[in-house]
């Protein structure tokens, strides 16, 4: 398993375990929208929980609400942002 897919799996695990989403890991695509139409159906409280969980697990702080909208679009955008923060 590549480093990239491991990170994606870890983010999906957060969605399932921390946000208690009633879905299986393989039902979450890397680019499945987290919010809005045809999405996993996260609401603003889920998004806040996700931000806290990401910060705790990866030490990556999302403090700008505007940036958060882009980062929290899907699993891939979250993973990209985490990787970018680590390489910075």
């Amino acid at each position, binding site marked *: 398993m590549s480093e990239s897919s491991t990170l994606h799996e870890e983010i999906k695990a957060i969605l399932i375990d*921390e*946000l*208690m989403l009633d879905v299986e890991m393989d039902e979450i695509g890397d680019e499945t929208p987290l919010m809005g139409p045809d999405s996993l159906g996260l609401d603003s*409280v*889920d998004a*806040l*929980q996700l931000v*806290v969980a990401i*910060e*705790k697990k990866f030490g990556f702080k999302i403090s700008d609400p505007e940036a958060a909208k882009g980062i929290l679009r899907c699993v891939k955008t979250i993973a990209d942002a985490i990787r970018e923060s680590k390489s910075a």
Partner: protein
Amino acid sequence: MSDHAILITGANGGIGNATARYFLEHDESCYVYLGIRSGTNEADALAAEFPGRCGILSLDVTKAGEWESSLEKVAGENRVITVLVNNAGHHDDHLMANMPMDSWTDVIESNLSSVFLGSQAVLRGMMGERFGRIINISSLSALLAPLGQTNYAAAKAGVVGMTGSLAKEVARMGITVNAICPGYIETSATGAGDPEETKARKKAVPMRRFGQPREVAAAVFFLASKDAAYITGATLKIDGGIL
């Protein structure tokens, strides 16, 4: 991993001090921070009685910066606040026709804005722990709305509203938020009044007595426990049956 701790604001006063004592006496493993704005006599005495289990925080609950520095101190001691008792506050009664604007502002800030600031300050830590208990000490005045207390009744009713709304926001995160509305409680404040007035007040209580601070503390202790995990957004009145 940080150790869990309790923060009680207004811990020099009757209910705050009794609540701190109740936690210390009933949970040997707990660490209690006593939030004090001024004068530390009662808090110092408690800290001396329970060495190594109490910390005193100099905290004006109406100032965001003081919440921030207090929580930095707590984090520096490798602890995280997982129980917050928003108890600090005061009243300053006037008929509205004569109420100075300062009286309105001070009472709203010390009783309502303080609960917002304190709750916001501790929420992130609680979310990270996926456990938290916020217990807001409101007042029977929130429900009774006595004359002369337009400022205090509005502030305390605001606390009840905030409690319900915040409870819904954080329910999924293992955090509960509840309010307690004490009626007449035997403290230095209630004992200092006119004896005839005190007598009349006791007569208005179906139990014919004022409550003891310890009787409020016991409810706070329960709401802070793991056993109270399914109680959130509740308003518990402790008033000897007045309402």
